[in-house]
């Protein structure tokens, strides 16, 4: 069994994960086992999941099923044909998001990098360039705090912090090329996809969140950076939360609301819209950093 730490949680796990040195006390066990066809008290159901108080079940046909219980255990039932890397990739997504809800962390759909000792979150829906922007900022010397999922909560003093997440970025072939690197130098995230694990320098302690940029694309020239204010911030946090459709069903609503309010108060939030298909991601990073400094 491997021991590792991710998002401030120490895992004992049958599946190797891209984390860092663990604490002595185990918080969560990940093991292979049998996952029931349904959970007892379904309060929210989607095309691939069931959620209830303290329980979450996910099934991907022909690949794997996952059961996440009480914030302390993940059971994985893998299909015989599924490659171990496929299971690892899928485990790092939705199951971890559900686990974080159960452990009272908001799993934001975002990457985060360190700028001047604070966390800057780069959020947005799939295919809007989050990881590519984070990778470019990393190349310029900014440490990566997390990719894909950022675990956010208020610390003992009430400061909203981002916990150190995975120690790798997952980048598509085109994004690796944009960094001036060769995809062949990296391991694929799963054999069927041209998506690669790119190791990065990362932090070991949580950092206070200072700003969140929500990426979007448009068909016009130039960048558009607009502040998100008041209730728009709370709405944005919800839409950018992994599992926004089932968090209520798991009983995670009150924590999410409290933390969203704290985040809305402490963190600057902006929408950064850039031309779809732009080759120069560096220009996006320039715009982001310039805005941050202003």
């Amino acid at each position, binding site marked *: 069994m491997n021991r590792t730490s991710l998002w401030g949680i120490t895992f004992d796990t049958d599946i190797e994960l891209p984390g860092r040195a663990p604490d002595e006390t185990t918080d969560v066990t990940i093991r292979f086992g049998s996952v029931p066809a349904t959970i007892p008290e379904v309060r929210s159901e989607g*095309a691939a999941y069931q959620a209830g108080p303290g329980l979450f079940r996910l099934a991907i046909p022909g690949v794997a099923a996952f059961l996440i219980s009480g914030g302390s255990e993940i059971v994985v039932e893998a299909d015989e044909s599924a490659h171990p890397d496929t299971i690892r990739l899928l485990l790092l997504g939705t199951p971890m998001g559900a686990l974080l809800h159960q452990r009272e962390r908001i799993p934001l759909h975002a990457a985060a990098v360190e700028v001047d000792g604070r966390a800057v979150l780069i959020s947005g829906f*799939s295919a809007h360039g989050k990881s590519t922007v984070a990778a470019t900022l990393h190349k310029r010397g900014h440490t990566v705090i997390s990719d894909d999922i950022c675990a956010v909560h208020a610390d003992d003093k009430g400061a909203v912090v981002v916990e150190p997440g995975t120690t790798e970025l997952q980048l598509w072939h085109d994004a690796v090329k944009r960094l001036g690197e060769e995809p062949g130098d990296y391991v694929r995230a799963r054999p069927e996809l041209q998506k690669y694990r790119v190791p990065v320098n990362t932090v070991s302690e949580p950092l206070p969140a200072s700003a969140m940029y929500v990426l979007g694309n448009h*068909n016009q020239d130039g960048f558009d950076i607009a502040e998100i204010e008041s209730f728009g911030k709370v709405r944005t946090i919800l839409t950018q939360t992994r599992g926004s459709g089932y968090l209520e069903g798991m009983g995670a609503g009150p924590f999410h609301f409290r933390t969203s309010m704290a985040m809305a108060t402490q963190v600057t939030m902006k929408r950064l819209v850039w031309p779809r298909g732009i080759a120069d991601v560096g220009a996006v990073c320039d715009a982001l950093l310039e805005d941050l400094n202003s």
Partner: protein
Amino acid sequence: MKPIVWLASYPKSGNTWFRTFLANLLRDDEDPIDINELRTGSIASARNPFDVHTGLEASDLTQDEVDLLRPGVYLRMAEMAVHTGHHKVHDAYTLNCDAMPLFPADATLGAVYLVRNPLDVAPSYAHHSARDVAWAMEALCDPNHNMSDGPRRLNPQFRQILGTWSDHARSWLDEPPFPVEVVRYEDMHLDAEATFTRATRACGLDHSAEQIREAIARSSFDEVKRQEQEKGFAEKMPSSESFFRKGKIGSWRESLTQEQADRIITHHAEMMQRLGYLEGGSPVF
């Protein structure tokens, strides 16, 4: 539960024009709707609704795995909808690896199949994709033609299996177990009121003749072209010059060589004849 109406078409066949009309009809305002605010319903191949309704991130899945889950996503969308959704679709009507239709009858009220003379589709599709006409000719005749299936980057949309232009039309005309209303682009121009009224009814809407007339007027080609020139159109391909091009019938005569036109006619003769685009071996439009 509000079953979905699919607005299905091969690309560049009047789908956006019809959605503009529908948005104007449902909005019922004197001013034409902003073309960047159509919101008739997301395209069926969009990532975000899939991610919301599965709880997954589609970018971690293969295209075949996505297709296995898509029918369940559309069922969830229909179950949770307060109003009937009118969702654009460019996929052919196909089955996934489990032999399940991508667009399940249980989630569906019906479909409007928008179709256009392939001779006019070819130059328009080429312009849309910033490619030459020869590329579009190949696409229209390629049984393996897909959209958004490049494996090296994360596309904003899922792979959409199209097949040839004839395959696409045949799939929507002959396969679905739900009602499919065929609407020709040419009839939207030449017999607008009757055609839009028929399509409106197929969308499950009972708007009056006057409302339909006014919505047609607010959705004119000149209006959408003017708006695109003024503020751009979010649905345009990044590399393409513009989304709205000529909006004319028969402009293929200025864009295709005789050899190119003959190839399309030869390849698609049966379906062209069936849809009234070919009579006695000659193009109707």
